[in-house]
């Protein structure tokens, strides 16, 4: 039986950014998932959540817990990424001053999401949006 949770993240909302990832962490704890996997999912989710607040026009986080894997899908409503290989390069970022004041925007988010996930797929189209699909095997 699958367990699903969905969250909306608004653009520039640094007051509530992090709430969804903390709820994901608590939910996985209640479901009895191992701490090692919870940390990977939580970190990837938090990086994705901060990316939605920093870079996107708003978007959603969808968590699905199945018998053998956890799926985490982060999808936004734009603006889309022009150069994906550049965006996946550690240290490259287009984040503004506010994100940097929060301790983010150093170009570590997407590479760190990829490192934590067992499977990582990113698709983006300028003017449409970006979708990141991650899998964590149980």
């Amino acid at each position, binding site marked *: 039986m699958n367990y699903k949770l969905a969250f909306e993240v608004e653009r520039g909302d640094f007051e509530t950014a992090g709430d969804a990832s903390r709820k994901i*962490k608590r939910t996985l704890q209640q479901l009895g998932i191992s701490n090692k996997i919870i*940390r990977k999912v939580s*970190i990837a989710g938090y990086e994705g959540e901060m990316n939605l607040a920093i870079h996107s026009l708003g978007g959603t986080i969808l968590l699905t817990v199945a018998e053998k894997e956890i799926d985490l899908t982060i999808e936004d409503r734009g603006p889309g990424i022009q150069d994906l290989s550049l965006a996946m390069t550690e240290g490259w970022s287009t984040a503004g001053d506010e994100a940097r004041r*929060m301790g983010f925007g150093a170009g*570590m988010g997407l590479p760190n999401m990829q*490192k934590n996930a067992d499977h990582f797929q990113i698709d983006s189209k300028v003017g449409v949006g970006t979708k990141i699909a991650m899998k964590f095997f149980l």
Partner: protein
Amino acid sequence: MKLHRVKQLLNAVVLSGESHLDDEVQSGFGCDLMSDVLCFRTEDAILLTGLINRQVLNTVDIANMNSIIFVRDKIPSDEVIKMAQERDLLVMSTKYILFEACGILYANGLRGAYLK
């Protein structure tokens, strides 16, 4: 090392989570970049930082860290302190700069958190 020893070494003020001063800690991580905190094996480590916003608290929670020490005599807003109290998180503040605070703890046996 007990956290009350950390408090003593850094002459720190406790802002929340005083009941955790008897807990043990083995490692630390000093950084103002939360993205870097999330890239390292920082579980159960103390975070020493000069950033005092709510995302520092979220980062520590997500990364399963032990506690926070704000350096350079920085005190966060009442709202952030209240949030730390609600989360029962040990948060302290020290007058030492990041370099000195890390050096003092290292010289007394605390070790650094490592790369994944």
